[in-house]
């Protein structure tokens, strides 16, 4: 069965480091982005979310696992990658750096067309992409240089540069993190509008759960190279099951999770992933003894958790089958409820 959209199975990306060590930045991830849905990929810096995004774009070659688009596995030949890039496009964090200062807006947006040798109606296509990105009238911006635009306009140019190839999926890495706060909403509204009007799917990589709340349909929370909780954004964010997600949500203002639960320590590094549940050294549930009381403390320390499937399989919390948590304690709690 071919499933529409972008999906990754068992994706693993490893980097060799000096000293012969290996960093497992992405460690067995299943993820899927369907057309017309916005998926947030959340986590702290160093959790592997950017590496995962780069791998999904074919910019990083995975060590293991496969990426497929509309059911067709991605191959890494130059030609296959080029074709793939008409479907899956990238929006970078910093629009100032993402635009060549020596290229005009027109050149920046037309770049994709020129790379893919789409010569017909170039200026019409550029104008359409710019106006879809909210830069109207588009002709007014054609010959402007990036430094003549505001931060929000620059990010719209970057988005237009992606849209010009008519992609089905956009991967946006912290699309608003470097923009001024008051401008962020506009760019996020644009992503939502593209989803509604063109059925565009988006994977939004972010550390900001508030942002995920305002635009994401589904959310996947990543910790140390693996997705630890995923499901509909509303459910995951208002009632997180994984202790890590709970902690992340609890430190936000007016959080639905009582707290704040401030985790001690920094995220451990990807060269030495703890045994058992990879979160257990920092886990507040384990530290408080609640896991011990539920009889899962030994499992937390020693038994590895299964990799979460992308959106099939049995959910641990009964209300929604797409809701999944990789946590021994949460699984035990669900079992005792049942």
């Amino acid at each position: 069965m071919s499933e529409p959209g972008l999906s990754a199975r068992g994706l693993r990306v490893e980097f060799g480091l000096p000293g012969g060590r290996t960093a497992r930045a992405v460690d067995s991830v299943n993820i899927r982005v369907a057309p017309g849905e916005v998926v947030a990929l959340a986590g702290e810096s160093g959790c592997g979310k950017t590496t995962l995004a780069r791998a999904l774009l074919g910019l990083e070659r995975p060590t293991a696992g496969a990426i497929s688009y509309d059911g067709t596995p991605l191959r890494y030949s130059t030609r296959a990658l080029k074709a793939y890039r008409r479907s899956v496009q990238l929006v970078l964090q910093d629009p100032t750096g993402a635009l060549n200062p020596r290229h005009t807006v027109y050149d920046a947006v037309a770049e994709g067309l020129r790379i893919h040798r789409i010569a017909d109606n170039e200026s019409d296509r550029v104008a359409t992409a710019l106006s879809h990105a909210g830069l109207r009238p588009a002709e007014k911006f054609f010959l402007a240089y990036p430094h003549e635009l505001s931060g929000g306009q620059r990010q719209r140019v970057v988005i237009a540069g992606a849209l010009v190839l008519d992609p089905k999926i956009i991967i946006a890495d912290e699309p608003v993190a470097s923009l001024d706060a008051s401008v962020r909403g506009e760019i996020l509204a644009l992503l939502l509008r593209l989803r509604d009007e063109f059925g565009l799917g988006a994977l939004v990589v972010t550390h900001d759960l508030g942002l995920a709340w305002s635009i994401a349909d589904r959310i996947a929370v990543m910790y140390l190279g693996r997705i630890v909780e995923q499901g509909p954004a509303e459910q995951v964010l208002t009632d997180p099951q994984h202790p890590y997600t709970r902690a992340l949500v609890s430190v936000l203002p007016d959080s639905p999770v009582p707290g704040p639960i401030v985790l001690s320590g920094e995220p451990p590094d990807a060269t030495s992933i703890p045994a058992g549940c990879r979160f257990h050294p920092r886990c507040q549930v384990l530290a408080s003894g609640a896991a011990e009381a539920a009889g899962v403390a030994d499992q937390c320390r020693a038994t590895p958790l299964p990799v979460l499937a992308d959106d099939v399989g049995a959910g641990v919390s009964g209300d929604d089958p797409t809701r999944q948590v990789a946590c021994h304690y949460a699984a035990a709690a669900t079992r005792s409820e049942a």
Partner: protein
Amino acid sequence: MSAQSSGQTALTSARAIAWARRRAALAGFWREYRTQRTGLVGLAFLLMVIALALATPWVTDAGGLDPTKVHGGRLDAPSLAYPLGTDELGRSVLLLTLWGARVSLLVGVTATLLAIVIGSLVGILAGHFGGWTSWVLMRLADWFIVVPTLVLAMVLLLVLGSNLFTIIVVIGVASWAGTARLIRAQTLAVEGRPYLERARALGAGHWHQMSRHVLPNVMPLVLASTTLQVASAILLESTLSFLGLGDPNQISWGTMLHRAYEAGAVSYGAWWYLLPPGLGILVVVLCFTLCGRAMESVVNPRLRGGGR
């Protein structure tokens, strides 16, 4: 200049506007350059020398270079007929100096262009591809840097035989390595920019990335370094010619010095034979250096003094 003002022009003239913008960029460069006083002085003298060199065939008679057709005495001191005296064959030193400027400038500029082309190519390839490509290319460059340029050039000239063409090639081959290192460093800096990542995500191949993004961004540095390198190419040509490795059929400042030395101008006290080519080399090298430094500080504002 804002998006609004440029928007009033129709797209049909996009190319014209792109040119207008290039002109504006050039004007901006000139505005910055103008603030560099030494650079302006260098440029003025340089333009003068170039104008003289270009005008020489029209204002002078090439026949004066033929020893069989001249009437001057051997190593005559400056006089009204020969303002800078004569050489050992009785030719006007002034005439020789003017004609010599042409060869010196020609060799300097062409050899530099060759060196810059090789250096840029190697530097960009090494910076863009990295890995073993970079390793091989950079070890090659290291070899050229370590081997003394003069010795290398001498050996190559002895092997290839000396004429104008081989001199240019030899100087170019002997001096590309420094440029390659410079360009590679700059390429690496550009490679780290997000817009290259964006281009890759758009599906850009290596050629697109190098020609559309890397090259335009290293170009200003290349230009500045070219200007500086012309000076050293002229010096190298003069040195080689002075050592007797120049093209015997061409008159350059270096060959003039060589012949003056051979003819015993030093012991004879014929300063008028030694000074003009020597000063010519000095002035041209200084001018190119001043211009190059000025351009360098325009394209790389960090080098500008007094900024902090």
